[in-house]
């Protein structure tokens, strides 16, 4: 155990005790011998259910890799990852695909939508692929929440960047996944549109009880989360509960300074 901090088994606020996903001694390394690069270095992490977790860190810190591994998009070199009680490390592609389809939602930084499908088709796509009927009431509620009822028939290229990301959020929410992963979901948006999307994410946690994990390098975005994890050099080096943008920024500056002097 080399991380700077021991992650508590349950959330520091004491609100929820359940864990939606956890990583145990996860190592992700590329190459071997001289050229070996360690992206994740024995990471232990618990993602609390029903909470909004942000993962921060400078470029190359391994934050995206961690998210990809947690989401079953990438394989680990060693260690274990559990989604609820299911160990996903070692699952074959078929099972992993089904797991992503049925239990996980995604919001990417860009290129979230299929250009050939309109907004509502994009939103229901994971359920269509699975051959499931979307729950009509829930779908309406999600669509209303993200404020897209007027634009459901539009193709992605007829929507603004903010609208496109809201469709992506709606898609992630519509299937009621156990956990939603966001990879810089507001990275390509101006601050107003970004705030809008983050507001929806926050609301979905508060009102719908959704579990969300978001990778970001934007302190303002991170301030929407319940808890922020800091990654550096493949390790979790710090965490912060109920962050504010200023506190996050200060903490980041600390790391930068430490990084320079060490």
């Amino acid at each position, binding site marked *: 155990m080399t991380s700077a901090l021991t992650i508590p088994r349950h959330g520091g606020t004491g609100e929820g005790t359940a864990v939606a996903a956890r990583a145990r001694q996860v190592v992700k390394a590329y190459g071997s011998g001289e050229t070996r690069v360690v992206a994740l270095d024995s990471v232990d992490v618990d993602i609390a259910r029903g909470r909004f977790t942000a993962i921060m860190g400078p470029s190359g810190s391994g934050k995206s890799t961690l998210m*990809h591994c947690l*989401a079953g*998009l*990438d394989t680990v070199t060693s260690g274990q990852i559990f989604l609820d009680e299911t160990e996903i490390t070692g699952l074959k*592609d*078929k099972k992993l*695909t*089904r797991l*992503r*389809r*049925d239990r*996980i*939602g*995604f919001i*990417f930084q*860009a*290129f*979230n*939508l*299929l*250009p*050939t*499908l309109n907004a509502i*088709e994009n939103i229901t*796509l*994971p359920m*269509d*692929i*699975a*051959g499931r009927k979307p729950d009509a009431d829930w779908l309406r509620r999600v669509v209303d929440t993200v404020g897209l009822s007027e634009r459901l028939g539009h193709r992605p290229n007829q929507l603004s960047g903010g609208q496109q990301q809201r469709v992506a959020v709606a*898609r992630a929410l519509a299937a009621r996944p156990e956990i939603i992963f966001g990879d810089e979901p507001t990275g390509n948006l101006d601050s107003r549109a970004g705030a809008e999307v983050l507001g929806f994410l926050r609301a979905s946690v508060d009102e719908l009880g959704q579990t969300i994990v978001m990778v970001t390098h934007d302190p303002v975005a991170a301030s929407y989360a319940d808890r922020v994890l800091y990654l550096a050099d493949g390790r979790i080096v710090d965490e912060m509960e109920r962050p504010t943008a200023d506190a996050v920024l200060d903490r980041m500056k600390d790391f930068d300074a430490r990084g320079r002097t060490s």
Partner: protein
Amino acid sequence: MTVLKTSLRNFFAHKGRMALSAVAVLLSVAFVSGTLVFTDTMNTTFDKLFATTASDVTVSPKTAGGSDETPQSGRPESLPASLVAQVGKVEGVQRAQGTVMSTSVTVVDTSNKNVGPTGGAPTIAFNWTPNVLRSVEIASGHEPRGPTEVVVDGATAEKHHLKIGDTLRTIAVTGDLTAKIVGTVDFKVTNPGSTLVYFDTATAQRELLGKEGLFTQISVDAKPGVTDDALKADVAAALGGGYKLQTAAEVADAGRASMAGFLDVMKYAMLGFAGIAFLVGIFLIVNTFSMLVAQRTREIGLMRAIGSSRKQVNRSVLVEALLLGLVGSVAGVAAGVGLAVGLMKLMSAVGMELSTRDLTVAWTTPVVGLALGVVVTVLAAYVPARRAGKVSPMAALRDAGTPADGKAGKVRGVLGIVLTAAGAAALVAASRAAEAGPGSLWLGLGVVLSLLGFVVVGPLLAGGVVRALGAVVLRIFGPVGRMAERNALRNPRRTGATAAALMIGLALVAGLSVVGSSMVASATEELDRSVGADFIVQSGTGQPIVPQAQAAVAKAAGLDHVTAYKWVDAKITDPRGKVSTADLAATDPTYVKDLRREVTAGTLTDAYGKDAMSVGSDYATEHGVKVGDVLTVAFKGGGTAKLKVAAITADTGQVDNGAMYTAIPTVTRHLPADRVPNSLLLLASAKDGQETPAYQALKDALAPYPQYKVSNQADYKEELQKQVGQLLNIVYGLLALAIVVAILGVVNTLALSVVERTREIGLMRAIGLSRRQLRRMIRLESVVIALFGALLGLGLGMGWGTAAQKLLALEGLGVLEIPWPTIVTVFIGSAFVGLFAALVPAFRAGRMNVLNAIASE
């Protein structure tokens, strides 16, 4: 310089994406150069053959036809033996030898199997003279000595397992000759497939010409220092003008001329199919470059931003095309030589022996291959290259995502509709044409215009047709099907071009199959309507029937009557003095029962009276001949007769159009016995209720004469269908090249689409699309594109075929028959083609790493 460097780098960086285009160029160029090498090799083979067989000067009868002509009488024109001595005395003659040569023979083994070729090359019988040793050498045994000895060529002996001591029966017009094989000879040059037998001179004269003291040719060799031309002049001076004299060079030229027709037809037909493959390849190349340019938009924008001119960008794409063309063509020329060798092997399987010794690669072949390949590739890349030049520098700054989906424009729609309408109008004009000449021009114009129209309008049709197909085929696959449909529709121009490539080949298949089956249907209908005979006897090669075989047929049990049908070469002078040449049909009077002909005037049975005949309605109209008029008929090699026109037959239908009938005795009265032609075919009818035993009796009677075949009406129809089917299969085989290139085009489009949609595929995989679903999506897109192409092609082809049939109705092709089984098979087959084409692209898409796909820029 930098332009070239960029082009080279791009070319090699994207060689995978160009691979299929290169293969398309390769295939087309290989077909062209293979055709050229093959036909040149055949020419070389025949040139060498004619050059070695001919003596310095050959003397033949003035009236003799070419060496490949089989006289109807079964007896070649001859010269008296005394002439040989006369020629021998001419100044400058080293040696004069009398040659007997006949192609009117059939050679069979003891089990009555024909040892000669049954199509194409002839069976030739010769007398044995030193002249023979110009072209062959004795491989085993010795030359023929006496009436029971025969020598056969080694290739035939090997093929039919003949040994020295085996017996061969030679069937000639004078009767059958049974002789023992005493030797075999091998050719010094390539013998492309003729069977040759040699007898001693007296035997050859008796058996082939009917009596001793005759020759068909005199082979004259010059003394050293005397040129062939001088010798020819001397011999001509000594003999007078009654003979045909040819130097060795003239014989070779005549030989080449007699082959030229056949070889040229073959050459241009094959080049035509190569041209179709090229046309199809153009679509593939256009698509490839369009997609490469689209995928490289940002890169090109950057080039423009840092100062490349439009022209430089444009040129860099064209240089890439040039490289592609060069690589494809060089490989294509090499493959072409291989193809030619393969073709030669294939020909040897059907009895035409060609040797790789004679393999001829003229310098023009690689030049033509390279020029064609490069020019076509560069031309095809021109439009995409221009589009590349138009990319704005701003493109570098924009987030490209996927390239903008192409839209089909209005201009295209109008142009396409105008072209299609013009094509349709021309096809209608063709089908209503009153004369074949202008009608076929309309047909050609209609085919070209409607094809162009469909190519242009294809992308616009894609929307509707793909959606309709989607409704039928894709809906059952749920969201995967829907995404496949959307993908097929997102770039109609690309889908249209990909489908158009397939459309071309399939349109030709459909068109020709309509014509072919209409041909069979029309002939069958005609047979049912007009043929009364139960059986027909004829040879497969058009050789007349020897008298002994005809006698055997006449003796067969259970027959009501046998009708002989002969062709007599004659010059006919109408009452106004206008002369024309024609083949008179001399038949037994029972012919009127065997073939029902309509008459416009007179009675056909009267034409079989003494010195009477009938004419066709076309002749009657053209020459103003009425029933009762008298025509002057000069029989070739015989006397002149005044024949009264007793009937005029209506020239409708396919059988015997324009025939002039007369009775056999009318002909024999005016011809010497050895000039009377043998029967070209025999018709026979069984006594009532005896049809089955009579058919068997005929087959038994003809068993010793395997060169003739007897068919009843049902078998005849079946053979006809088989023949047309075989012909169509050959054409389909040649069209397969174009279809293969079109399939490569589908593979190419899908493979490049998969590359282009990397991020999309990653996204779909991330949110839970399984590999299997992804592969299915790509396969379905492929199937829809293929079905779209098939639908257009089959529709177009059936239109062409119908117009062609209506036009050919003038030539007796009266029945239109759409071969639905073929059409449906092709349609369903193209769905499988789609599945097949998607195999590799789908596999590769499935293998794509989800993360890389998401991260891909």
